[in-house]
């Protein structure tokens, strides 16, 4: 404690604050007519320990009731259409299959014109080669 703190303490003690007998009597009389306020209902809020099963059973029963009610209401409110199952698995009338048009199936021939062209070109080349050969023979 430094000098400043000592002075603060000393000066506080220098304040004369003796409680008068009248003040003491007033306080005493006031306290006599005052009752303490106790926080109410704290124990009532918590269930006794030996009744834990009661709350568990109540909760279980409530859950079952909720499930039953939900399912009950759903059955009433959403009607499910009855399923229809066919008795026969083949068409009753075979005529559409029999009267179906018969298709004339041919393979498409896209290559023959090119092959003809190739033969013509090869014969042209052969003719040209023979012509060149004749010319060479004449030259030498």
């Amino acid at each position, binding site marked *: 404690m430094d000098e400043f703190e000592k002075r603060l303490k000393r000066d506080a003690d220098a304040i004369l604050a003796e409680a008068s007998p009248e*003040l003491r009597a007033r306080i005493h009389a006031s306290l006599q007519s005052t009752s303490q306020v106790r926080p109410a209902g704290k124990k009532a809020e918590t269930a006794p320990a030996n009744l834990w099963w009661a709350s568990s059973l109540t909760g279980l029963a409530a859950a079952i009731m909720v499930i039953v009610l939900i399912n009950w209401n759903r059955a009433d409110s959403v009607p499910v259409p009855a399923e229809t199952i066919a008795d026969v698995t083949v068409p009753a009338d075979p005529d559409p299959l029999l009267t179906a048009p018969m298709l004339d199936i041919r393979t498409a021939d896209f290559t023959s014109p090119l092959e003809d062209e190739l033969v013509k070109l090869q014969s042209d080349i052969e003719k040209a080669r023979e012509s060149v050969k004749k010319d060479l023979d004449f030259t030498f």
Partner: protein
Amino acid sequence: MFTDEQLVEASLDGSAGAFDEIVGRYQERLLRFLLTRSSSRADAEDAVQDTFINAYRYLASYDSRWRFSTWIYRIAIRNAARQRRPEWHDSDVELVDDSDPLKECMAHSERENVWLAAKRLLSNDSYDAMWLRYVEDLSVKEISSALEKSASWTKVTLLRGRRKLSTELAGTTTAAEQRQSYGRI
């Protein structure tokens, strides 16, 4: 010697004398503090009475994790704040310095009481914090609880209050020394 907290327990258990013991311990401390905060001695005594009534009535809500002094000072500060302000604030009548209960209660001394200077220089909250720290020896945490402020606010306020008062006291001392030296000359 029972502690305050033990006396509270006893009072809650129905002991009539336990709270009387608390009153005996705190009435002068609270009166001294409230004299410095009220506008008259009568107001300070009313505030002391109200503080004990409130404390007794709501004793069950006292949290024993805190010191009892923290709790009862919080009640006292609230009562002091609720009190009517001096009439001179509402009218043109000037407050005469001599009517200050703090001045009336000062032991006669040649120098100014530092709490008079504190009352003049500091705000109410700052004054309360300084009083609780240096007179009641409460910790920063307890003061912040009593004043319902944060711990950082309390630290800063204490530091500023101390600095302001130290500066004022240093100035006063220098002036007094100067007067003495002039007298010698």
